């Protein structure tokens, strides 16, 4: 486990964005007072510390540079650092508000060992201008404790006890009240409580103390919650020379996809969602994901998918000084059966899937849709257009046809408006079809009407709406519409609102 603590995240963020020479402090409102939330090294030497009132700090040192805090920008910065840390391990977890936890087990040898990995990480952080402290230990608790309270860059794998003993109790991530009450009885260091009888300690200070101690000492397992789901298949390539051209990126994708193919084939899986992560030399990370409509293994098809994705990027790839590492991970894998079950049968289905994938990659999965019949009698809910990549089979239409034959459903319009549009209509008799109506400012004289077809609202729900009487009407020029009157005149007596007319669709 590697714990990384960015001691001066707030002030470093500001110092990176502008030139400042004076001692820097960050202020924010706590309760009703404007107080210091972070200080930089120079300000700390002047005796300022977080929690001090701004007025007091200004009185002590008029020359200080005070900047308002910006929690969002800080979170964004930490997020980008977390993204960047993906180059060391896919398992990166938050340690809010200003730290990260990296599970580097099994990854360190890629850099030649833990020390070398830490040296690489520290070198890059220093170049970027961050104050940090990091520690590697066998458990999360021990790594965290030595990063925050121990000697900088101490390595203790298997000797957590010796490492932790001299550290203060707050290194165990205990609430300040617990630490204070332990201090009152003279327990100040972790070593003080490590060998005490457990039962009285729990009885007096709660179970949390021993819980955290056990976790730090490795007696109890502490799970790490990675901020990103861990991909089942990953292939990555470090590049000696940064690449910048799109063709080169695609070549790398092809090569990585070849490697993924072996891994996928071995377990009989195919990729449903693939993510490309490009690490720029200056620390910026680009993540580009693409979905597929069927499990995919063929490197050429994966490459073709990213050709479209890269072409569709609103802002160009912007390689800056080049990418020095690329990683292709399969985010969602699915068993890939020997025969394809898709939109149709055989070779045709494969070709159609390719087309759907290509269009989805370029335009976005939500723009390429298929219709599904839903289990509802309300026209606008009876059908849903869902991304074509997610739908297989007949999508409920067989059931719909059976239902239509059973109840002899009256004709449905060819096109349905997204939401019914209100119209002004004049009807001959209150419950009859309209004589004429005005829709989008055009007046239509009705020459023929068929109906009503009553469709009840969802009366079991609060937002069900009134019953509707649908009419199929044709106007003088032969245009055909699907209108409805929401509400019934007979309900007027019970205090319901007056019925209103809507246009819901058009027939051919």
């Amino acid at each position, binding site marked *: 486990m590697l714990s990384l603590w960015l001691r001066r995240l707030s002030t470093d963020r500001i110092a990176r964005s502008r030139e400042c020479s004076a001692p820097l402090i960050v202020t924010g409102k706590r309760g009703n007072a404007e107080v210091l939330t972070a200080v930089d090294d120079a300000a700390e030497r002047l005796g300022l510390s977080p929690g001090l009132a701004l007025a007091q700090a200004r009185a002590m040192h008029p020359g200080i540079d005070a900047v308002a805090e910006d929690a969002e920008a800080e979170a964004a910065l930490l997020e980008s650092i977390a993204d960047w840390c993906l180059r060391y391990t896919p398992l990166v977890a938050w340690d809010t508000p200003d730290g990260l936890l990296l599970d580097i087990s099994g990854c360190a040898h890629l850099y030649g060992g833990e020390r070398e990995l830490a040296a690489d990480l520290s070198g890059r952080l220093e170049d970027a201008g961050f104050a940090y402290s990091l520690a590697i230990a066998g458990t999360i608790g021990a790594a965290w404790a030595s990063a925050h309270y121990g000697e900088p860059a101490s390595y203790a794998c298997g000797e957590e006890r010796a490492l932790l003993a001299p550290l203060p109790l707050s290194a165990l991530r205990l609430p300040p009240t617990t630490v204070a009450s332990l201090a009152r009885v003279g327990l100040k260091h972790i070593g003080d409580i490590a060998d005490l009888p457990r039962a009285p300690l729990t009885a007096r200070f709660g179970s949390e103390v021993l819980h955290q101690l056990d976790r730090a000492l490795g007696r109890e397992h502490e799970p790490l919650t990675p901020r990103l789901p861990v991909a089942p298949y990953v292939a990555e390539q470090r590049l000696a020379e940064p690449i910048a051209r799109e063709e080169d990126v695609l070549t790398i994708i092809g090569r990585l996809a070849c490697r993924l193919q072996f891994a996928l084939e071995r377990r009989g899986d195919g990729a449903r969602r693939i993510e490309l992560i490009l690490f720029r030399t200056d620390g910026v990370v680009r993540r580009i994901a693409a979905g597929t409509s069927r499990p995919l293994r063929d490197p050429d098809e994966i490459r073709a998918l990213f050709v479209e994705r890269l072409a569709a990027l609103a802002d160009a790839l912007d390689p800056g000084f080049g990418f020095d590492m690329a990683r292709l991970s399969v985010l969602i894998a699915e068993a890939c059966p020997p025969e394809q079950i898709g939109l*149709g049968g055989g070779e045709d289905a494969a070709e159609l899937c390719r*087309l759907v994938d290509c269009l989805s990659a370029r335009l976005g999965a939500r*723009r390429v849709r298929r*219709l599904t019949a839903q289990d509802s009698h309300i026209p606008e809910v009876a059908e849903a257009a869902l991304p074509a990549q997610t739908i297989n089979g007949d999508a409920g239409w067989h059931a719909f046809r059976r239902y239509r034959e059973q109840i002899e459903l009256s004709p*449905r*319009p060819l*096109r349905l408006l*997204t939401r019914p549009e209100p119209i002004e209509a004049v009807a001959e008799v209150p419950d009859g079809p309209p004589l004429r109506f005005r829709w989008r400012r055009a007046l239509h004289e009705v020459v023929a009407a068929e109906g009503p077809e009553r469709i009840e609202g969802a009366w079991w729900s609060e937002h069900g709406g009134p019953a509707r009487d649908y009419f199929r009407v044709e106007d003088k020029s*032969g245009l055909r519409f699907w209108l409805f009157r929401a509400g019934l005149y007979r309900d007027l007596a019970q205090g319901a609102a007056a019925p209103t007319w809507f246009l819901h669709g058009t027939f*051919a």
Partner: protein
Amino acid sequence: MIAQLRQRLLALQRAPEIKHGPGTQPLRIPAIDAVLGGGFIRGALHEIAAAGEAHLPAAAGFALGVARRSAPSPRLFWITEDMGLVESGAPHGAGLDAFGLAPERLVMVSAAHRRDLLWAMEEALRCRTNDAVIGEMRIGGIDSVAVRRLSLAAAESGALALLLRAAPPSDASTAATRWIVGAAPSAVAHGPAAPRFAAQLVRNRRGPVGSWILEWSNRDEQLILTTHAQPVAATAFDRSHRQVA
């Protein structure tokens, strides 16, 4: 060298080949098939424009009627612009089903720009599994290069390419045919009868033009020619025929 270049230029400039024989798809209406030289040409672009924006559903109905005949159960791509979906509504599966088109064999694509629409249409036309590709355009022009690209893409796969336009276009076209379609009053008896279309063939690369009143026949799942085209007298004041339900 120059001769070679000339030859290449000639090859590039040549209009896309219009295939004869098996490449046509008859409407099974002798009068129209004769004019079209056997029927709608597969692997070529056909423009179908609505007589006015209000007639777009009718033009879409006509296009679907033509597409219906492209295969026993055609696989259909319907590509629209985002604005088109808002203005005219999204294709409704139950309505398509009544038109003899299986909604499960329809893929809808919506494009944010005209450029994306044309690109998606071209990609869809290249795919050999599609029987018909309908591209629906709002008002606005389309340059001849785009039309040519679509024609070439259609020729590659032999799919029926239908370009649906919301208003009669004014630009010259290199499409195989251009139709202007509007709704026509149906044979009103008890409520609205089968939909009728006033279809006008205004451009035909293979011969004469003409205009017909067609009706969608649900029984045969195809367009048929109506025997009595327009009502002779306007149905002005006598409303006794109207059925009030």
